[in-house]
């Protein structure tokens, strides 16, 4: 074990952890904004109740996303300083723009929304949640543009004197074809999580308490959440398909590693299940669908998909001796888990819609249980998607330009990285327990009672009136 390994583990752990909260922030901010808009338009109290209820869950999650996000920005400089030196000219810009354009918007307006219920005119208060939601979604774009440069570097040159990457075309960086498709794919994945959360919480209340005054609210949330889940699942699939074709062009090794395809095939079959030998050089058992991989990778059922061994030989000739192959079992299985978990959530959403057809109220305990695990499925799919795309890029930190091992901080010792990795892991694990317990507590509490608080009555004059919300 050396500092490089620990730095990599820390990046993996802190990033996957951060991205457990990000999808809900991205997706739920918009869904809560939609719920509040419906209340604003119709005046129907059930939408207000849902806004406040899901808004609370959203905020419990939001706090974690914010604080774990700061670590991400600092981590490049702390653990990956040589990487930062190499790409700073290009990579820093989207990060800075994200903070200035998106993160200020999100953080400022979320404060206005949380505390502004009684201090802002209704319209402005509604606009605040939309501004925060737009900020969240915009920030995803800039971060993904930065990440896409690592997958498919564009709009740069290498300065022969300094050996560093320099920006030559910023528009090319922002319109990187990998970014253009990864953004909708990631956003769709985020809405898959948010829609599932809506369904899970609503189903729990529906099945347990069939005839409460709030049943119509939960019914609406379950149906709305299911539709969001289904539409997102379709969007995830379509964008994922396009992404696969782009990946086959720009990172053929990643596609081959996703499939465990060792030799170049035309036409190539899609592996449903392949078990390889332990050294990963040949397959022992395989269940395959002919032509499917060719179609997925190239759009042509007879198209050529390059294999790992051929690409390895080609890269060794191009970049010098060494291994250019990611860890195949990791890429192979994370790719499948990503797709499998995501589609499982969509299947449950279909069942939930079916259970409510023609005004029925769902009663099945089995469906309740399925509904409860539902948000965990797309959450896992999101994590595996990131593990796949980042591990599939290895051994590169910037594909074709810099190896991961060359990006690590030279001045940081093993002890230092171990200290920070241990500290983050412990604090993140503790906070995860606290956060999940709070989420469950507030999810179980159900939609709020909107009868006015006796504290806030006409006996107080305006200056003495308690705040509608306070920490």
């Amino acid at each position, binding site marked *: 074990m050396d500092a490089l390994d620990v730095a990599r583990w820390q990046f993996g752990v802190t990033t996957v952890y951060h991205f457990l909260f990000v999808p809900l922030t991205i997706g739920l901010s918009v869904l809560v904004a939609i719920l509040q808009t419906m209340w604003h338009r119709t005046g129907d109290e059930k939408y207000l109740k849902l806004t406040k209820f899901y808004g609370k869950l959203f905020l419990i999650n939001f706090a974690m996303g914010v604080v774990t996000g700061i670590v991400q920005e600092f981590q490049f*400089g702390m653990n990956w300083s040589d990487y930062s030196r190499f790409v700073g000219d290009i990579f820093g810009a989207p990060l800075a723009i994200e903070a200035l354009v998106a993160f200020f918007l999100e*953080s*400022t307006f979320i404060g206005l929304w*949380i505390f502004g219920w009684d201090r802002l005119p209704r319209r402005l208060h509604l606009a605040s949640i939309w501004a925060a939601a737009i900020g969240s979604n915009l920030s995803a774009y800039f971060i993904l543009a930065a990440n896409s440069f690592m997958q498919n570097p564009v709009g740069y040159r290498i300065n022969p004197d300094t050996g560093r990457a320099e920006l030559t075309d910023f528009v090319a960086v922002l319109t990187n074809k990998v970014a253009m498709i990864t953004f909708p794919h990631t956003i769709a994945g985020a809405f898959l999580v948010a829609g599932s959360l809506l369904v899970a919480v609503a189903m729990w209340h529906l099945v347990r308490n069939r005839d409460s005054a709030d049943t119509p609210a939960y019914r609406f949330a379950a149906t709305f959440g299911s539709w969001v889940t289904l539409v997102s699942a379709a969007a995830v699939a379509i964008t994922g398909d396009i992404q696969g074709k782009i990946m086959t062009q720009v990172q053929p090794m990643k596609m081959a590693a996703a499939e465990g395809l060792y030799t170049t095939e035309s036409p190539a079959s899609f592996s449903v299940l392949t078990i390889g030998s332990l050294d990963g050089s040949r397959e022992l058992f395989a269940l395959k669908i002919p032509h499917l991989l060719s179609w997925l990778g190239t759009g042509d059922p007879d198209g050529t998909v390059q294999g790992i061994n051929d690409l390895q030989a080609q890269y060794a000739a191009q970049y010098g001796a060494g291994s250019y192959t990611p860890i195949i079992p990791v890429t192979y299985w994370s790719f499948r888990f990503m797709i499998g978990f995501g589609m499982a959530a969509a299947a449950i959403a279909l069942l939930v819609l079916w259970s409510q057809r023609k005004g029925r109220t769902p009663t099945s305990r089995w469906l309740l249980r399925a509904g409860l695990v539902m948000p965990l499925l797309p959450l896992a799919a999101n994590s595996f998607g990131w593990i796949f795309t980042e591990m599939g890029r290895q051994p590169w930190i910037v594909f074709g330009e810099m190896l991961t091992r060359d990006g690590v901080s030279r*001045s940081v010792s093993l002890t230092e990285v171990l200290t920070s990795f241990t500290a983050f892991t412990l604090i993140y694990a503790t906070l995860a327990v606290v956060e999940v317990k709070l989420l469950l507590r507030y999810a179980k509490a159900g939609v709020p009672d909107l009868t006015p608080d006796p504290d806030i009555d006409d006996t107080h004059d305006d200056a003495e009136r308690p705040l509608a919300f306070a920490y």
Partner: protein
Amino acid sequence: MELTTIWFLLVAVLFTGYFILEGFDFGVGMLLPVLGRDDRERRVLINTIGPVWDGNEVWLITAGGAMFAAFPEWYATLFSGFYLPLLLILLALIIRGVAFEYRHKRPEASWKRRWDTAIFVGSVLPAVLWGVAFANILRGVPLDADHEYVGGLLDLLNPYALLGGATTATLFLTHGAVFIALKTVGEVRERAGALAVRLGVAAAALAVAFLTWTLTIRSSTAAVVFAVGAALALLGGLAAARVRREGWAFTGTAVAIALAVATLFAALFPNVLPSTLDAAGTLTATNAASTPYTLKIMTWVAVVFTPIVLAYQGWTYWVFRKRIGVAHIPRH
């Protein structure tokens, strides 16, 4: 003006904004156990910054991003070199941010006490460590010819840097007390106002010592002017605090923090991270900078968006301008 100079100024402005805004957030957090005698009073204190602390923290994220984009070498060397202090700052900011949001989510006293501790520790650590970090930036650190940090943790804990940490901590305490006096009513306001004066005397003494020491390490005309201005502003703020002119007192401490940060950056320029070893290791606004193309794009983005951000953040403070007291704290 050179683009690199503009970006040096912009990074300075971003850190100035950060320390003015999060300075009083840290102060409020550190004063939580001192000024908040029961749960309702502590909630009053937390709610003075409740709607704004998150937006204030984005100044840091933007400053970090701006450093990365405009001066990648500075960002890379500084963040890898100041590893453990930054780690502590990160951990502090994590528990503090979560604490604000989670503290009121359960009624148990033990639950609240734990988050109160998190807010206190999460405010003290950065308030001290930012001072230590910036003092070291000014003093210079051991960098080799490749601009790599070759010192250890103890190199960062020198007397000058520790004085810097004590200075920022007491300045933020004063700034926070003044802010609380400005934003509350009742007993909390009285106590905060009285405490602000006492803290302010300590802050003024430390700040004068620290800035004087700073100017003996490196200096420029502008730095001297700023340092004198910082001292005058702080004294003015204190005088205002004594007679309970809270708005003026807050203006005084805010200007004092701004000018103290300006002193450091003015003394530092054109260096961004001097080396105490090889002169070739010194990072300057020129040799640490990105290409002119990147800086030009970033300048346009900053020119367009900074005024917008300032406008809506300023508006937030206007929306939440009312003072609060225990009567305003809802039971839940």
